[in-house]
């Protein structure tokens, strides 16, 4: 393979060939940087590129390999969603209010990647503060879907998903509060995994909704997702919500065959609704047939409170956001707009520094928490959250994993939904419940619509069920070739 197409490799393919001495981490990193320079004017996946730092990290990885070290991420070029703190590198959250913020420390997930010898290429675009489903809420620019540049890549981790799909990195970190890893993965035709709440430390992740936020991975295939997750997962004393539970060997846990005998798969009837794109339904049903063909026992299950997930999520997440984003006051970091007095300065700073969707959600959350409405909205939503979680607990008594669509439609046109926030919220309708229940879920490619746009299959598992969902997804992947398709760029 000529070095010019090294960007097409998966993480595990690149690792094998780096280990065999076929090329160096510097050559691999140069190939990916060239790819970025060639494409990113059109795709616009990156907010910040770090070519010099990346090449220095690649040289360091080559030196480590030369003295005998051989680990899966050594010298692998990756991208980081710009909501994760990176020491001495701008971390904007896609917001004007943090345009000039340079963290003095690394988030734990990024620090673990660096220890593992990964090469950090840069920071990827996102909806401002990870609030959105298309990257159109970025204060800087919209990322374009590599499969059709007139369409959105999904969001909020749209920059990371587009970068993986376009070969502008070998893998990426994203975050998923209500679907922000799985939905863009689906719309860009890549793998996106949201781990169980508490599986990955949130230290250094700029908070949006603290009871829902979780760092996830975007990759070209399931094996790569297992490799990346294994590195970033695990207990961290600096995040009291990170679980003190051993991290399995996710990659070896995939199994080498495609046999799904005795695996019980549930298909929730509530995830096939009126108004969804017909191909989103037929493609997912065809994928269920493939799983059955591999020996899985497929049965219908019910998650009866699914229809309430949207209001529950869009009350709880904005309520938590309104509290978390109170810290942007123009005092300790970020933008300050002088308004005269202290209170007026707060208001002017926040009025100018936040974009329309962030202000909308702060308003919605403030309202849900305010005197007279707390019981009717916020408390009510928290109680309904208990019912949504109980639905999953009951379903996982009957089945091992649940499969469903990720998104009711394939990638929509840029500008198509920006005028109607409720329509935009509805694009998350199949991903929100996983976050509310705190369980794990992933998206993997399972087909294309008539227009050639990718469709994702969602595989959901119980808390700490990552090995199960990865194994089922891996078996499906081995039986199909959707994951090998690349956009025509």
């Amino acid at each position: 393979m000529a070095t010019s197409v090294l960007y097409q490799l998966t993480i595990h393919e690149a690792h094998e060939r780096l280990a065999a001495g076929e090329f160096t981490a510097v050559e691999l990193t140069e190939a990916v940087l060239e790819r970025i320079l060639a494409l990113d004017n059109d795709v616009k996946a990156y907010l910040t590129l770090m070519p010099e730092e990346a090449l220095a990290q690649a040289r360091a990885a080559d030196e480590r390999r030369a003295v005998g070290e051989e680990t899966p991420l050594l010298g692998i070029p990756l991208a980081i969603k710009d909501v994760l703190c990176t020491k001495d590198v701008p971390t904007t959250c896609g917001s004007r209010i943090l345009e000039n913020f340079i963290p003095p420390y690394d988030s734990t997930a990024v620090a673990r990647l660096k220890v593992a010898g990964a090469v950090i290429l840069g920071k990827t675009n996102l909806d401002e503060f990870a609030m959105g489903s298309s990257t159109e809420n970025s204060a800087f620019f919209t990322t374009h879907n590599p499969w059709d540049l007139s369409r959105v890549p999904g969001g909020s981790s749209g920059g990371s998903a587009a970068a993986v799909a376009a070969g502008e990195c070998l893998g990426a970190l994203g975050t998923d509060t209500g679907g922000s890893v799985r939905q863009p993965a689906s719309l860009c035709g890549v793998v996106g995994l949201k781990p169980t709440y508490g599986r990955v430390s949130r230290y250094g992740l700029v908070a949006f909704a603290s009871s829902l936020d979780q760092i996830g991975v975007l990759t070209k295939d399931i094996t790569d997702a297992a490799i990346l997750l294994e590195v970033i997962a695990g207990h961290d004393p600096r995040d009291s919500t990170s679980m003190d539970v051993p991290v399995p060997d996710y990659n070896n846990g995939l199994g080498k065959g495609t046999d799904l005998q005795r695996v019980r798969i549930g298909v929730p009837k509530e995830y096939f609704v009126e108004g969804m794109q017909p191909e989103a339904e037929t493609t997912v049903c065809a994928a269920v047939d493939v799983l059955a063909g591999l020996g899985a026992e497929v049965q219908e299950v019910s998650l009866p409170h699914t229809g309430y997930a949207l209001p529950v999520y869009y009350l709880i997440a904005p309520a938590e956001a309104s509290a978390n984003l109170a810290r942007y006051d123009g005092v300790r970091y970020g933008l300050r707009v002088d308004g005269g007095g202290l209170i007026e300065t707060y208001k002017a700073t926040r009025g100018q520094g936040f974009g329309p969707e962030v202000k909308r959600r702060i308003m919605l959350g403030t309202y849900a928490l305010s005197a007279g409405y707390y019981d009717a909205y916020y408390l009510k939503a928290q109680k309904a959250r208990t019912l949504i979680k109980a639905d999953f607990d009951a379903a996982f008594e009957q089945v091992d994993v649940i499969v469903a669509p990720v998104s009711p439609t394939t990638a929509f046109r840029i500008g198509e939904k920006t005028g109607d926030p409720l329509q935009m919220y509805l694009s998350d309708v199949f991903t929100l419940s996983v976050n509310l229940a705190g369980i794990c879920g992933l998206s993997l490619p399972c087909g294309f619509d008539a227009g050639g746009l990718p469709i994702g299959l969602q595989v959901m598992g119980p808390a700490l069920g990552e090995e199960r969902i990865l194994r089922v997804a891996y078996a499906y992947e081995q039986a199909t070739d959707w994951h090998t398709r690349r956009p025509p760029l």
Partner: protein
Amino acid sequence: MKLSQEEVEHIAELARLALSDEERVLYQEQLSAILEHFERLQELDTDPIPPTASVLPLRSVMRADEPRSPFPREDILANAPAAEGGCFKVPAVLE
């Protein structure tokens, strides 16, 4: 659930957000539509249901009380919009 202009202004005041006249009108319409959609939540009988604030069991997280070095003051102040004498500088709070 229709929000009034006064309610929108009150929420913006609580959230410390300066809004333009256009934003006030827009948010009045959009938040009203969103809240109306959310009315379906009231169909659910949740009286006997306990709320879920976090999916993790409530527990105390303890660690050894060992001294550690904080971030250097200048590193933290480097991100401040205004600093003076090793402190964050803010507009006068008292007249």
